[in-house]
């Protein structure tokens, strides 16, 4: 489903050039559930952002099914994100000024859907994640686990093929972490492709493949 070839990205930090991605190759198949581990600063978020079409590499090829994301401009990538990507940003990113319902509905606001359709879709996702009773709450009254469910609900609302999660359980207790991982496993069983960035071996063990990121490349870990 996804082919990354020779991706390179570097940042100028003062005089120095930091190579974050350094000829990275990666192949992801439909239905994979993938963990990416690595030291802090190794470039995991950078990779995930590129996969999401939020960021771009300096060079290299990013092919998603038949299309070359690496050839797209900003607006085309926005379309791509909207259609195919469910992104769970690090630290349960929710918008404080919107309630749970509006947070989940946000991606739909960028598509031309009627009120009724939005309502239906959000209701369905709320039910799937068993958080229907939270829908009109303000987000700052939620617990960590609830917030992460809402963030997952937002990532799922467009029914994307590819779900990207950056440290989805980093700040959760074990019990809640297990619940979230269950949700991921279910999504994977439904046929979704998941890429999860994590520091946590428990999370990684839930995935079929574990990749380790180092020196701007990823390599599979075989245990």
């Amino acid at each position: 489903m996804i082919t990354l070839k020779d991706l390179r990205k570097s940042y100028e930090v003062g005089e120095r050039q930091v190579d974050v991605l350094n000829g990275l190759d990666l192949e992801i198949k439909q239905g994979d559930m993938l963990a990416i581990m690595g030291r802090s600063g190794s470039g995991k978020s950078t990779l995930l952002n590129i996969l999401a079409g939020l960021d771009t590499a300096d060079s290299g090829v990013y092919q998603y099914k038949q299309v070359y994301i690496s050839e797209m401009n900003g607006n085309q990538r926005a379309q791509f994100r909207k259609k195919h990507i469910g992104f769970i940003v690090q630290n349960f990113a929710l918008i404080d000024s919107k309630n749970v319902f509006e947070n989940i509905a946000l991606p739909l606001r960028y598509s031309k859907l009627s009120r009724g359709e939005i309502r239906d879709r959000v209701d369905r996702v709320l039910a799937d994640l068993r958080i229907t009773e939270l829908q009109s709450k303000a987000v700052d009254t939620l617990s960590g686990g609830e917030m992460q469910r809402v963030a997952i609900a937002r990532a799922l609302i467009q029914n994307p093929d590819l779900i990207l999660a950056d440290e989805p359980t980093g700040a959760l207790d074990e019990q809640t972490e297990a619940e979230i991982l269950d949700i991921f496993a279910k999504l994977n069983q439904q046929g979704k492709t998941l890429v999860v960035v994590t520091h946590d071996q428990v999370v990684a063990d839930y995935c079929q493949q574990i990749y380790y990121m180092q020196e701007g490349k990823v390599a599979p870990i075989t245990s």
Partner: protein
Amino acid sequence: MNMILREVWESLKRRKWFSVLIAIQITALFFIGTLLFLTHTRIESKSDRLQPLDELTLYQLSDGLVPDSKLQAFLEQPDSLDQLKTLYQNLEAQFEERYIYLFNQMIEVKLGDDQKWDPFFHGYEQGAPIERLKKRSYKPMKAVQINEHGFTRFSIPLSKGAGFSSEDFHYNGNTIPVLLGAKYEPFYNVGDEITAKYIQKDLTLIVQGFIQPDTFVFNYNHPELYLDRYIVMPALQFDKIPQTEADELFQKRHYLQLINGTIFSDEEPYVVRRDLEQVKKVSDFSDMQIMGANSDTLNFMFSAIQVNKNLLKIMAGSLFLVCILSISILMITKFQDNYRNMAIHLASGATLNQLFSYFLAEIFFMVGLPGLVVTLLYRQVIEVSFGMYTLMNTMLFAVIVLISALPLYLQFRKLEISSLLKRSE
């Protein structure tokens, strides 16, 4: 669009008081802009046209034919009309272009019962009983009569038609040419005839032209008389001897008014008084004096507005800067506050352009709403040169929005999505 409104609304709520403060500043700025606009448009028309009259002292003449019994006795004298005519001619001969007759005397016009005429009624602003006056077939309309010297010296600007020629100031036996104020333009054309009564005499008025909007004249009693709703008539000379008694009475009353003119002079007061005594003597008319002198009707207004104008300019200038600064600061602050939220929007399928449009829409709203309110208020209350005024406000609006959005635009230009996501962590 819906999305933009939603985001603007949420954003406004986020720094409510700062936004309200800015809205107040902007309102004040538009308000001062309005004052400047008003003084500017008025000063312009004054300085060009009336500056020459500005330095002069106004001596108001007044006949001493009071009380009524004295007036009655005078009118019954067989030669009173001759006396009045001679006096008037001598006043004009002695003072020439300094003798200006500008009198505000209504004229009765035969009109249908249409409320569009209401504002043209004599005394409309003073609360005349409009409903009662409307029932008459001849309606009392605002009018001024002006002599030839007055007409040339005020150089009343026309938008259409032709001004008065010398012959127009002499009654030709059937019609009187008139100029109509700008507000009459939709209702009449040049060449139209109007049936009217002036001092109870039936007359036909011929529309000869239209006066430019916001034109004003002044005399001793009226520091500013805007002509927009007035009928301007020549102060007529009657060369023929009246045929009927009614005609004679009409002419007498008419000339009685003509002699109560104003001398616009830059000479020493004693010279003016001496010259007037001379006129009284050769005209054999003693009941006439200078009622008062006024040297700063216009002068005073000019300087007062001038001072205010400079003050206003300084205020407008500094307020302009303060507004732009505070909007820029607010927007940059919000931009930084919103890193995390912006990342979420982007991940949800937004483009950077869309995010920028939210900020821009917020600036539009913060500047546009006060601007719109002030403009609508202006239309309700003042209305003078509304087109120009709207243009000025639109430009002011555009300039504020452009300048205050600029720092934000630059921030967006150099924004890297990765740093946005970085900071959101």
